[in-house]
């Protein structure tokens, strides 16, 4: 049996059924991105009224927060769908079925995009209404930013899923906090040049750094830095492959240790 789109669709259907049966789950997708966007949007409005530079750099904060949410919520969407199987004690059914790990991952990636769309599309429209910031006007640049951020979020989501398989729900905290490790390092709200030199090396090793630098170049200097996007893509390819390898190793280890059967704490 080869990779089966039918099985991927079956898993997407499973998560979709769950999502649409639960309004708190849907509300949660929109609530925090909206709060973040409004908070940073109003802060930016205040600064714009008091500092000439930010008048020129209109939308930098709100753009940063929206792109950060793509990165963070992309990973969270992946990880939460996986966690739903553990909460439901359904992982045994899944792992015993003909679903292959690659198909499972593909379904989780699809769900992360669906969950992100439910959360982010209304929030980006609200950003236009409240602050006149139109993320969609970035056009092709937005597509490049989105693709790179999603690849990073999936790579980390895959790694976290492997850790959950190997360590059970004891590793659940990682699903919620892992991405925040990257927040100060990938320079979401400030340029890389702000960091001390030794931290800049680490920052440039992270694909999202290139995206946020690219966003600032676009919004402040009105230049699309394709070179940054290509560098991010290269790093993402490495990161994604590393995430998949780590997942395979952790899954094999879970089969040896018997943790597929004991997915509790």
């Amino acid at each position, binding site marked *: *049996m080869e990779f089966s789109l039918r099985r991927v669709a*079956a898993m997407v*259907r499973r998560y979709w*059924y769950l999502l649409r049966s639960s309004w708190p789950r849907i509300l949660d997708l929109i609530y925090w991105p909206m709060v973040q966007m409004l908070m940073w949007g109003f802060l930016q409005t205040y600064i714009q009224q008091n500092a000439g530079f930010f008048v020129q750099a209109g939308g930098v904060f709100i753009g940063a927060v929206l792109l950060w949410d793509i990165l963070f919520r992309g990973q969270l969407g992946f990880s939460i769908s996986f966690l739903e199987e553990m909460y439901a004690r*359904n992982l*045994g059914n899944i792992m*015993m079925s*003909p679903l292959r790990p690659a198909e499972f991952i593909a379904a989780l990636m699809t769900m992360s995009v669906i969950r992100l769309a439910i959360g982010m599309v209304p929030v980006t429209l609200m950003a236009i209404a409240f602050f006149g910031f139109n993320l969609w006007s970035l056009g092709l640049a937005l597509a490049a930013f989105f693709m790179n951020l999603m690849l990073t979020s999936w790579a980390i989501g895959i790694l976290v899923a492997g850790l959950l398989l190997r360590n059970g729900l004891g590793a659940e905290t990682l699903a919620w906090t892992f991405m925040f490790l990257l927040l100060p390092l990938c320079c979401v709200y400030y340029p890389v040049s702000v960091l001390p030199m030794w931290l800049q090396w680490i920052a440039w090793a992270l694909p999202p750094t290139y995206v946020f630098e690219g966003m600032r170049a676009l919004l402040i200097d009105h230049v699309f830095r394709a070179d940054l996007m290509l560098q991010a893509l290269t790093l993402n390819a490495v990161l994604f492959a590393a995430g998949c390898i780590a997942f395979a190793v952790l899954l094999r280890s879970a089969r040896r240790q018997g943790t597929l*059967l004991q997915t509790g704490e």
Partner: protein
Amino acid sequence: MDATPVPVPAISVDRLVKIYGQTTAVGGISFDLRPGTITGLLGGNGAGKSTTIAVIMGLLTPTSGTVRVLGAEMPRQRYQVLHRMNFESPYVDMPMRLTVRQNLRVFGELYGVADLPARIAQLAADLELRELLDRPVGKLSAGQKTRVSVAKSLINNPEVLLLDEPTASLDPDTADWVRGHLERYCHGRNATVLLASHNMSEVERLCERVIMMKKGLIVDDDTPQRLLARYGREDLEEVFLDIARGRGKARELVS
């Protein structure tokens, strides 16, 4: 010379060992199950039944030894046969917020079931689930949930069925009904069943062979009738107690 071909075992366990750290969960057991047979796997808590079943399902890698299901080595070649097997266990649940129909549809698609709506309708009729199809699994009683789990385990018409305590926590009437259905399915489909249970009357009723485990080893392996005769007991519960407490006459076995 007898030319009758020997059937390939549906499940073949050969010198299976599973060790966790310093603990030996299974200490080197071997058995073959012929196609179309129902076999009970009995033993007290910690005897190694669940570990053995987990290896057969491909969820656990053995420390040494081999397990083959329908000719495929588990877990290495599991994708060759997983669509021909299934299982039911009280240690896993169906997603509670999904309706019975949604669950069966998802699992049917995962197992590649052809004409899925017809299969769901057939299972709903066989297992008296018609009224429940559009209700969330979480809203069902324990007995109804078990019937749904049985439906899931039969969704792909499995040739090999692994049942871990299929009637645990059911009232006697529902448990009897579930046993009856499983018995009819297995004989109708000529399916091979390995049943782990603590319910001795269930084992006596369903199984033509009983494998007794204790501390990771097989301590007896025979038909229920011969076990009763050898231990001089009237029911398997007494045989179970004899074995658990080290009394009686186990057959000479090389695990």
